[in-house]
């Protein structure tokens, strides 16, 4: 084995197929949920033995190409506020740079204690992953489980934060025509940095970017999603450039992910059309919680590798196995549920195409 394979894993047919499967499940979930699918693919690759930083780097590179293809369609539908995207991007670059720097530092042994190389970065990535996604999933689940009457009263995302911040009117304010909103640079900057930081750290910037655009900036949902995808293209390019410069991008993983994800994403998007909104959110939150659980189970392993926890190293494989099980179980169950609806709808379309025509008998008509 060559020395550069220290960063990159050996890929045999079995591993390759698992990465393609990860890509497929991630793609289906991504198309269905509207996120990048990194919350599944990144930990999945880590479970296959890929270093956290390489998993993040390969995934952000994968996201870049995917966003480039996808944002074209959103652009045609008029859902992209390019000015907003550029403004967020400028600040997000600082966030990405910060993330790349921290990840690289920890990977190169910044955590000290003579720890296994990469364990510090793995622990850090896992902790950020667990904290952020737990908040996202629980908020989503709370929304779904809210009694229907209350849900109606609450009537969708609140504008409380956007309205509260708008009161300050901190200059300079920027008007975004497509999104039809005005945002202070002082509010835009921290949101951009946070989005970039999360995209660079765990590859899920959209989980912060989209809600922030909706809740904090007051951007319509369709425009928030389209703009985020447009933004993801540039952030992905910058992330890919930075990580490739550091030598962490495994292009083989990126290509294998594409094999599954670009097919899966079509099926996921198709699923959105045939499943109701509440169900989508329920499935999403449960899948994310299981992914969080899966990553949480791996944390003691990294703590041991760093010398913070005294447990038998032989347990590592069990932690890894259980973590992998939860991840694949959540992803596979979610994907199967989605595919079930997709196939059912596909058969319905083919089999039950009908127009029922009823003509009233003349005698019963009232004209």
């Amino acid at each position, binding site marked *: 084995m*060559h020395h550069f394979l220290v960063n990159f894993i050996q890929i045999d047919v079995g591993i390759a197929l698992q990465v393609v499967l990860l890509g497929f499940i991630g793609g289906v979930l991504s198309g269905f949920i509207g996120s990048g699918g990194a919350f599944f693919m990144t930990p999945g690759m880590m479970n296959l033995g890929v270093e956290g930083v390489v998993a993040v780097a390969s995934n952000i590179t994968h996201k870049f190409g995917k966003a480039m293809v996808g944002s074209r369609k959103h652009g045609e539908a008029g859902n992209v506020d390019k000015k907003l995207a550029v403004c967020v991007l400028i600040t997000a670059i600082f966030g990405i740079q910060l993330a790349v720097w921290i990840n690289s530092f920890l990977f190169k042994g910044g955590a000290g204690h003579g720890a296994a190389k990469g364990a510090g970065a793995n622990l850090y990535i896992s902790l950020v992953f667990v904290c952020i996604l737990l908040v996202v999933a629980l908020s989503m689940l709370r929304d779904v489980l809210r009694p229907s009457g209350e849900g109606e009263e609450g009537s969708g995302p609140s504008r409380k934060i956007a309205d509260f911040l708008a009161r300050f009117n901190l200059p300079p304010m920027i008007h975004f025509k497509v999104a039809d909103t005005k945002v202070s640079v002082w509010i835009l900057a921290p949101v951009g940095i946070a989005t970039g930081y999360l995209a660079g750290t765990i590859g899920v910037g959209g989980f912060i970017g989209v809600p922030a655009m909706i809740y904090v900036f007051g951007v319509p949902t369709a425009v928030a999603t389209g703009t985020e995808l447009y933004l993801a293209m540039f952030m992905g390019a910058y992330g890919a450039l930075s990580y490739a410069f550091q030598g962490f991008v495994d292009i083989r993983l990126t290509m294998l992910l*594409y094999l599954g994800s670009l097919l899966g994403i079509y099926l996921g998007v198709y699923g959105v059309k045939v499943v109701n909104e509440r169900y989508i959110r329920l499935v999403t939150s449960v899948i994310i919680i299981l992914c969080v659980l899966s990553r949480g189970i791996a944390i003691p392993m990294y703590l041991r590798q760093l010398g913070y926890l005294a447990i038998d190293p032989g347990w590592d494989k069990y932690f890894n196995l259980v973590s992998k099980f939860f991840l694949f179980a959540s992803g596979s169950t979610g994907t199967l549920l989605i595919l079930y609806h997709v196939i059912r709808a596909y058969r319905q379309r083919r089999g039950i195409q009908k127009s*029922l025509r009823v003509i009233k008998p003349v005698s019963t008509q009232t004209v």
Partner: protein
Amino acid sequence: MPIVLISSSPHGVGKELARELERKTGWPMFSREQLVEQAHDQGIKLSRLETSIVKSPVIPEKLAREKELYLAFVTAKLCENAREGNLIYYGRAGHLLLPGVSHRLRVGLGVPRQMRVDNVVHDLRLPPEKAAEYIDQLDGDIEKWVHFVHRQDARDPVQYDIFFNLQNMSLANAAVLLCDTAELPDFRPTPASTKRLDDLYLAARAQLRLSEDEHTRGLDLGVRAVGGVVTVTYMPRQEAAAQSISQVLQDLEGCQENVCTMAETNLLWIQEAFDPNTENFKQITRLAQRWGAAVELLRLVPRSGDAPVPTASQAQEEPRSQKPVKQVYTGGVEDDDTEAPADDGGLADTQEELVAIGRSAGGFTVVGGTHEIIEAVEGNSHYSLVILGNLFLDKAAETRKRQTRELGLSIRDRLKAAVITIDELQSRFMFGKKQALKALVYAAALVCLYTAVFHFQDPILNLLGGELHAKWKWAVAITVVVFVPLVAYTYSTVTGLLLKLIDID
């Protein structure tokens, strides 16, 4: 005589102008407040919808349905009274109601801000600064309302027939002018505008009836009515409700026939003449089947300057929106409008064919151009695709192309839907020989890319993170950023084409 729709802001003088007009003409007057109260009594949760529009950037599905019901309720009430004669209506965005009815007189009012502030000070006993803030807030909220409910910009002057600036004009004089304007022949009912009113009335009542019945309440339905034929589209997941829809509409007054089509979305096909035996028809129905969509036909009869002009009598007699000739129902009594056009441009036959294959979302004729098309479809504009067929047939090829393109841009702008021409249909959405060849070429390129990378793993990994990388860091980074989208684009093209082949996209 017309239906006078006065668009007035709160604490403006719309109410006073309407009263003045009522006093002069004796026409019945309705206010938005009255109708809102009645809608509330009918169980339409309007206050929740208003709160939602103001407070949240996203409207939940259930409340979006309330919007449709509210519009149906207001439309039904106005049509019910307008059918008996004239009427005056005033209220928020009143000028946007009853789209496509040519004998409505849409009135805008420019009220000096200070006058409104004074009114608030007087009505609500607020200090002037607070009153001004209150007015601004209110106007902002109303703008959001109009944007969501009517998908229009209330400030767009094109929406009004007459606009009064009350800075230098008294209400009494404005009312006099309004009375005179109302007398103009332009605002007199024509057979076409009366039919349009009847269609709106029937569709609104059908929608309300469906919302009241326990079997059909809460369904996502698209309801349209043309000449006594009510077309309802419903989502595939609500398939069980199809039978109930027909039963619920069975004894609806004025409904001679109803067609229920299962559809996730609608395609709008605009053309001057239809023929179910053409290749275009086959392509569109195939696309509709693939998308689970219903096809709505709009036959455009261009007006003067655009295409053959209907004669004066035709313009009077031919309804702006009319049902296909073959479906004209006489009930044993011949209609007064005996000059219904004999040539319906193949609309009826094409619609029959669509019903037969289960993809019909109705069909109608529009006389005019872009403005008339938008007015006719605006209330039902949930189209995922608008297809512009053969239009402006009397023009030279270049002019036809330009006018079609301009029409497409206007429709896309107003309806926020994707618009393509019939010529683009094959290349964009269908799988033919060209697409098969493209898929093969891209697939071959893809195989080459993957083979190269996985066959030469060692040198590539050396380049990505080994000694070569240390020497050529920037070059490697740039290569990765260029190479990855290339792979993504090639593979997504192949995948997209193959999914098209099996009818999933």
